[in-house]
């Protein structure tokens, strides 16, 4: 049953990726501006431009161009970047890994902060702790990450000088894991705070709802230990909506990481995608968007799968 569910979901990936690739391809071609302007500069003659368009295959009809790209991609060849003459895979993969490092670190922080704050607030509902926690989450939940990032830089990097301002490693040092972790703190916190706030609010309301259910009242009346009650009857039942919102936040984290990449000069996929779009570097844009779409779809499937494992009734729906 679970296997067929998973099979169906995985089979749905291909049409999604196909749709994304067609839309990006068309959007990039609809946008005004010409890659030959970037590659040849303003003094190029029309003859030079025509020759380059021919070399790049850009003088072919759109369906032919797309078909060729699709054929190569199906064979696992993402081609060569038009702007940099580098293989697209060599360009994208290291940047993708950097984005994943930032996203996973942010997710870890968001879950840790969100789950802890939400649970404590729910267990002490309407206390001063609950009220102040909900105010704080409201503030962080509505703060733009690039602004928050700058504030954190002012405090922790410039005033206290605890953490670096930008990049992934110290450019004058030897790098290393510790150095990267040190550089990761501020961008990860910046990216994590807004999702953490939303997760905290969802955890709180979900736990509160669970706490008020009749079977919990009965269990309490029967004298079940508080720890067992929370673990077996409250938290487990509250988990599906929490998991769903966490999964959705992962998508937000991917997007939020792109903002943090700019503020902290974190060399991830976002800045590469931006420079590739401005350079009309079609092969890189196509591959990067496909990778992002694939990650997003896979994460959603993973979240749904976890939800199904927690609540088998979902399989039927």
């Amino acid at each position, binding site marked *: 049953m679970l296997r067929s569910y998973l099979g169906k979901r995985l089979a749905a990936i291909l049409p999604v990726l196909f749709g994304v690739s067609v839309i990006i391809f068309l959007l990039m071609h609809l946008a*005004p501006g010409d890659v030959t302007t970037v590659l040849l500069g303003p*003094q190029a003659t029309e003859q*030079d431009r025509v020759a380059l368009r021919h070399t790049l295959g850009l003088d072919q009809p759109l369906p032919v161009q797309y078909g060729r790209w699709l054929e190569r991609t199906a064979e696992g060849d993402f081609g060569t970047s038009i*702007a940099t*003459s580098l293989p697209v895979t060599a360009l994208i993969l290291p940047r993708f890994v950097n984005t994943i490092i930032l996203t996973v670190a942010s997710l870890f922080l968001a879950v840790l902060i969100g789950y*802890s704050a939400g649970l404590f607030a729910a267990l002490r509902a309407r206390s001063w702790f609950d009220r102040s926690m909900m105010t704080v989450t409201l503030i962080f939940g509505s703060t733009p990450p690039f602004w928050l990032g700058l504030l954190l830089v002012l405090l922790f990097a410039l005033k206290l000088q605890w953490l670096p301002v930008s990049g992934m490693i110290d*450019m004058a040092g030897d790098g290393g894991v510790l150095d990267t972790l040190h550089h990761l703190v501020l961008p990860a916190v910046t990216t994590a705070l807004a999702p953490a706030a939303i997760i905290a609010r969802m955890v709180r309301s979900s736990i509160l709802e669970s706490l008020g259910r009749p079977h919990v009242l009965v269990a309490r009346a029967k004298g079940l230990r508080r720890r067992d009650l929370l673990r077996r009857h409250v938290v487990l039942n509250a988990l599906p909506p929490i998991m769903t919102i966490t999964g959705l936040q992962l998508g937000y984290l991917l997007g939020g990481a792109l903002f943090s990449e700019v503020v902290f000069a974190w060399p991830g996929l976002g800045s590469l995608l931006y420079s590739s779009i401005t350079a009309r570097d079609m092969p890189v844009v196509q591959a990067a968007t496909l990778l992002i779409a694939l990650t997003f779809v896979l994460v959603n499937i993973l979240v749904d799968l976890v939800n199904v494992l927690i609540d088998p009734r979902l399989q039927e729906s």
Partner: protein
Amino acid sequence: MARSGSLWMRLASACCLAALGLAAAPAAPARAAGTLIWGMPADTDILDPQATGGWGTYQVTYQIFEGLVKEDLTKADVSTPPIVPALAESWTVSPDGLQYTFKLRPGVKFQDGTPFDAAAVKFNFDRFWNKSSPDYYPKTASFVAAYTKWIKAVDVLDPMTVRITLTAPDYEWLRQGLQSYGQPLMISPASVKKYGNAGVALHPVGTGPFMFVSRTQGVRTVLKRNPNYWGRPAKLDRIVFLPLEDPATRVNALRSGEVQMISTPPWDDIDSLVKAGFTLSTNDHAPYINFLYLNMHSKPFQDPRVRKAVNMAIDREGIARDIYRKTGRAEYGMLSPGTYAYDPNFKSYPYDPAAAKKLLAEAGYPNGFTTVFELPQYGTGELVETWIQRDLKKIGINVELRKYEWVTYLGLWAKGMTNDVGMDEIGWGMSTPSWVDIVVECGSVAPNGENSGYYCNPKVDALLNQALTTKDQGAAKALYQKANRMIMDDAAYVPTVDDLDPVILSPKVHGFVNPPEDWFDLSTVSIGN
């Protein structure tokens, strides 16, 4: 409940401690001696000097590659960088101005050990000029066109002598070689053969004071000192070029000591950085002009009185003072201040909104008119353009600002303005006055060139051609200045405010020179305490 709470509390505490541990980790590992880290506003293009354009890229390639001659960028107090021998020890020009004979510098080797000689020079000219050569690389064509369009023949006279014959005398030709949109600098023939033409981008091998170490696209480019450099060795061990596109990040990285130098600082931060002990370096002769093209195909602008009114209505001094914060200079002509032909006393149209309004009324627009100003979301931002919009509104011209992303804009600019557009803009220039040909000549009218507003005055063209073929620089200067006056009498363009190339340096940086050029010689720089 208390026990469950304490479990979470313990987990949270452990994570807080871990985070604090990270924060307390050593802020920066031991720094290598003499490393300059430069926070740049954008990543550079590919590192093939013959096949790329853009000052940001030259700022890197200038350190790696050299040409037969070069501009001496170790002097800030000159109006134009003098041309000095580089890979050619000396050169002579035939009396008719058609033949340049270069005596090459003996004993020079490329950074990969390949000897530099006449064969290497021939190979490079074949690569960027000789279409019939198997070594020709078509991508270079448009980048070095301003230099190569004059060349008739390249002859190797002996292993250390090369003669280049021009199709017509051009006394700015040497400087055009350093100022072309790309730069015809010498690349190791062995490296091109080994890595291929496209491979030069990631394997740049020249003869310069620094050599390439590594590059991660969009992240950093690292150079190190060339230990076998033929000239005065560089003082720095390494240079790291770091693209930091967000201006606030650039400033913060400088303040925290992560970089020692930033270019294109945000104007609003300059004063506070100087107060904090950083050094502001500018150059009054940066060879650069920001200007508007007025569209000769758009009805109101066909009347010279309207064009003059626009020129008079813009408060350039105000822009330089309030927006550029003294790192800009109001400009009144189309000759770049970095050229020998520049006349600092020439003031075409001083700010006079009342006279502008009167001229507009005389031209039949007492209530003004509405027009479109196309601009890129790039460079000076939209502050200056908004200021211009406000100034023109004061004389009754309603300007709609149409902003485009840079590449889209470049395409529109190169095609020439459509009839509904009144003005567009660009910032450009070279340290040769012959640059002005590119944007004003009839032959450059869009879409066949960079004359986006279709201005055409055959008398101006004749003067510019005469200047180019005049050997005596004093006489050529007079011709360029006459052409400049004629262009501004026609009020075909609106020069606005030039950037003085501001660079902010950490007090640890010594020996930095900001020359009248858009790139720097970093071999004189050192890092101290």
